[in-house]
């Protein structure tokens, strides 16, 4: 397989995640779409790492996975707190500072 095939796949997956982020108003679905986007980028990094003969791409993929894990922990904690308080998971309800 060529590098282009992997990069095209990575782009398609990233676009699926982007569609999810823009279309969905359920905050839980928003988190899922973010995970998809992070994974798409990881595939691209690993592919470039192999075809370029350099390990830096894999290193960045590791750190992206670490960031994703901590993002989930904090984000889910905040979402649980918000849901206990208001009973809603809609993104529009969180927009309280809208003037």
């Amino acid at each position, binding site marked *: 397989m060529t590098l282009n095939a992997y990069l095209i796949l990575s782009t398609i997956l990233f676009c699926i995640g982007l569609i999810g982020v823009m279309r969905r108003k359920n905050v839980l679905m928003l988190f899922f*779409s973010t*995970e998809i986007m992070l994974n798409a980028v990881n595939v691209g990094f690993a592919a470039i790492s*192999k075809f370029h003969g350099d390990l830096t791409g894999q290193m960045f993929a*590791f750190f992206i996975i*670490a960031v994703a*894990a901590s993002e989930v922990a904090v984000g889910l904690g905040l979402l649980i707190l918000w849901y206990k308080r208001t009973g809603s998971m809609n993104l529009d309800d969180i927009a309280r500072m809208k003037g």
Partner: protein
Amino acid sequence: MFEIIAFIIFSVLTISMFSITVLTNNALYALSSLAAGMIFISAFFFLLNADFLGAVQIVVYTGAVMALYAFGMMFFDSLSEVKEKIKNPRLVFLLSGIIALIVVIVLIAPVIGQNLESDYPIHPEYGNTADVGIILFTKYLVAFELAAIMLLVAMIGGIVLAGKKMNESYSEMKEEEIDEKIRLENASQKEIK
């Protein structure tokens, strides 16, 4: 030949699983198809000779992140419908598209401008795991330790945020106490709203 067949099969599977995640209205379907997609993504890492990354992908995503989501979803009424109404889609799509294009150009310009050489080349004779370990514990040691601290902070933050009022257990209270508590909570919620 084998690589091409595997690539096609796994890309079709991954794209369909992630499409289900994005398009479905049922949070449980979304969660399980996302977990399946994560497993299929790890197949690409194995195809790309990044064995350790593939193992980490399975362990961290399907082991830790998905379990966290599954436990977190017990707090939500996950089958409830959320009204999804987009007010001005064209503006959003246009703005995000332009911003994405600008970011890509900014990031790609130095790569095209000067031919990059590999700073940390792959040694096939070491094997992927040993190779990754050598680089991770020499060149990226500071970043590695910072990531460890970040994960610790995130863990404590998650426990503090989600674990409020966990010290009260309904099973140890009497019937009247629970009624009184629920009445008080409803009253305080009305005040917030």
